């Protein structure tokens, strides 16, 4: 078959489709979004009836994927690393119940935090849940690993994680496809002793999971993802995931001859690891992410033969590069031209003409009238209002946190207690917080910037927008007179200021919905209309 140029994320998607996928479930999150988008665009996926619309959040996505698996079909669930925190309850417990049809969790970590609030390493979750983790190093390996992951999941009846990081997910390479496999037939498993996690069942299932561990290790020993590379000398390298790429690149560029053990499937293949450690005086541990395995190798009392992120041989934080690994292997740092002093930063900003700009302009004017000026915010394009010229928001912690944090601050006596959240983030994790506010009759003003889309990740469908959003607020019990609709446009500035003033003064729950379509989605629609001649 022809080679196709695919992003790592797209290789995951195409691999899943070709491996007989029946459904993908996901909430957008950089760098994982393109997996689901690819499946949504795929003609083959459509022809084979692969389910692919967006879920409200990562937890609902995971549970739906688990349900599909119980019914016997192969399902894929995709998220960014922090999304797995949201889905963790479902994920951890699905390792106890086990699965029926293959269930693969594709999770994309973001070391160096290009688009994230932390650089947590999803391999921790793999160890925590005691399930197999695959960490391919190239786009082709990602593609091939999807077949392997589904087969593995069905053979050991556990969910399998496919972990990647930003650089692999957002990098293109040629990928050769394999033959497409049929989808599984519907074969819902009746197994309440597995799937009902009451303590008497859970104890048995947990013991089964523990008993499986040596088998998982054996499977890693024969995995194509774990391979030794011949070499000589006293220094060996154990290279995980795309760490392998930088090691091989450094070896080639600097003529370094050393043994390498490439790791792409966990739990670790013990004999291969032992062999490397026995043959070498010093072992460099190269992991993209946290030093998860380096810490295990060192143990509590440490080991003098191990080098890596924990002794400064490699930096403790941030993503790896060929340069960092080359220096860690003894190469001289490259002599380079410095960035000229005149080169200033070009921080990202809200788009020209974006409705959020007008919303924050009004908010800033009203906040200045108050002694306390503290705005709780959330995760989306509007987080950019933390930067000048607006400097309008003062928190961004996790999805949906703006509302609940405003409640706590109001309880502490802060007035006004203001939250700013987007429609998609509200649908993801804001609704339950709003219910808390209503139940407490908390004096908070929640501004929902409804731009009708999940804008930051590129304009995906938002579940809680327009009239649905208003109905949700009503349904959760916000008083009709305190659900205020504004249109964030220059010409409405005075009106909008007046609305905010009134609601800040109200000692109860207010929701101000700022309704204006995202300028990017509007432009996209226009381009599409122009292209089709309408």
């Amino acid at each position, binding site marked *: 078959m022809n080679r196709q*140029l695919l992003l790592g994320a797209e290789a995951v998607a195409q691999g899943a489709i070709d491996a007989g996928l029946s459904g993908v479930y996901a909430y957008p999150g950089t760098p994982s979004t393109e997996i689901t988008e690819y499946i949504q665009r795929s003609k083959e996926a459509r022809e084979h009836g692969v389910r692919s619309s967006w879920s409200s959040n990562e937890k609902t996505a995971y549970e739906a994927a688990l349900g599909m698996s119980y019914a016997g079909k192969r399902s894929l669930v995709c998220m960014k690393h922090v999304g797995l925190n949201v889905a963790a309850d479902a994920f951890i417990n699905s390792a106890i119940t086990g699965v029926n049809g293959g269930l693969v969790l594709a999770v994309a970590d973001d070391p160096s935090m290009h688009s994230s609030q932390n650089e947590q390493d999803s391999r921790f979750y793999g160890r925590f849940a005691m399930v197999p983790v695959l960490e391919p190093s190239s786009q082709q390996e990602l593609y091939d690993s999807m077949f392997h992951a589904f087969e593995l999941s069905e053979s050991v009846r556990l969910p399998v994680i496919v972990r990647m990081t930003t650089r692999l997910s957002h990098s293109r390479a040629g990928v050769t496809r394999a033959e497409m496999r049929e989808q599984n037939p519907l074969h819902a498993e009746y197994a309440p002793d597995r799937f009902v996690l009451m303590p008497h069942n859970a104890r048995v299932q947990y013991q089964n999971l523990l008993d499986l561990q040596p088998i998982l290790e054996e499977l890693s020993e024969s995995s194509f993802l774990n391979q030794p590379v011949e070499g000589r000398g006293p220094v060996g390298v154990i290279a995980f995931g*795309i760490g392998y790429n930088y090691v091989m690149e450094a070896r080639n560029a600097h003529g370094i001859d050393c043994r390498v053990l490439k790791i792409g499937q966990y739990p670790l293949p013990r004999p291969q690891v032992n062999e490397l450690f026995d043959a070498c005086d010093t072992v460099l541990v190269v992991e993209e992410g946290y030093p998860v395995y380096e810490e295990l190798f060192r143990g509590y009392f440490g080991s003098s033969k191990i080098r890596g992120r924990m002794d400064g041989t490699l930096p403790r934080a941030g993503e790896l*590069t060929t340069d960092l690994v080359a220096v860690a292997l003894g190469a001289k740092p*490259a002599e380079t031209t410095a960035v000229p002093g005149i080169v*200033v930063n070009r921080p990202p900003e809200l788009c020209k003409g974006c409705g959020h700009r007008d919303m924050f302009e009004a908010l800033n004017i009203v906040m200045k009238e108050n002694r306390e000026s503290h705005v709780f915010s959330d995760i989306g394009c509007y987080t950019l209002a933390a930067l000048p010229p607006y400097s309008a928001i003062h928190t961004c912690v996790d999805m949906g946190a703006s509302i609940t944090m405003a409640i706590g601050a109001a309880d502490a006596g802060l007035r006004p207690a203001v939250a700013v959240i987007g429609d998609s983030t509200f649908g993801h994790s804001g609704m339950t917080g709003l219910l808390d506010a209503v139940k407490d009759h908390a004096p908070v003003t929640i501004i929902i910037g409804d731009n009708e889309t999940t804008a930051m990740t590129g304009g995906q469908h938002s579940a809680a927008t327009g009239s649905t959003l208003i109905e949700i607020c009503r349904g959760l019990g916000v008083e009709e007179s305190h659900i205020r609709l504004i249109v964030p446009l220059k010409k409405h500035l005075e009106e909008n200021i007046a609305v905010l003033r009134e609601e800040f003064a109200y000692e109860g729950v207010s929701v101000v919905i700022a309704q204006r379509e995202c300028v990017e989605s509007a432009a996209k629609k226009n381009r599409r209309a122009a292209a089709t001649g309408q």
Partner: protein
Amino acid sequence: MQKNIILAGVGGQGILSIAAVIDWAALTGGLEIRQAEVHGMSQRGGAVQSHLRIADHELFADLIALGTADLILSVEPLEALRYLPFLAPGGKVVTSLEPFINMPNYPAMEQILSELGKTDHPVLVHSAELAREAGSARASNMVMLGAAAQFTGIDPERLEAGIKALFGPKGEAIVDINIKAFRMGQRLSNH
């Protein structure tokens, strides 16, 4: 053969179209490719870059190592300077001279030109003017690809075929404008 190319610009300036053309030409020519892109937050008016690597042998890293880029191809002059640590000794800078000013402290153009002048015979292009002459200001990125063509290691005819493949779905008129833009850039650079 191996070429490491840094593509630079500001979010929304179309550097990924340049990458797509080179990718197409390299892939259909049987070469190995790694092309890392920036998605997500930085795309909103921030600095964006793409590391593009092509070779006739196996490539491992998606990222270019410091001091090993054969070419920095930038559609914005300040952005060309941002990636100088990646430039190999003897590497080439090809950049548009159209500034994209969305911050208050954007440096003076004379300073930028002076810094660009410290690199080895940089190719400096008034791309907007040429693109308009070709038929559309939006074809500025293809002017830049044309100006950089001789340093990509790929036959210009294959790059033109890539332009046809990429813009074909948008109609013949668009293809013609982009081919014209590409050739204008190429002519300027070959002088």
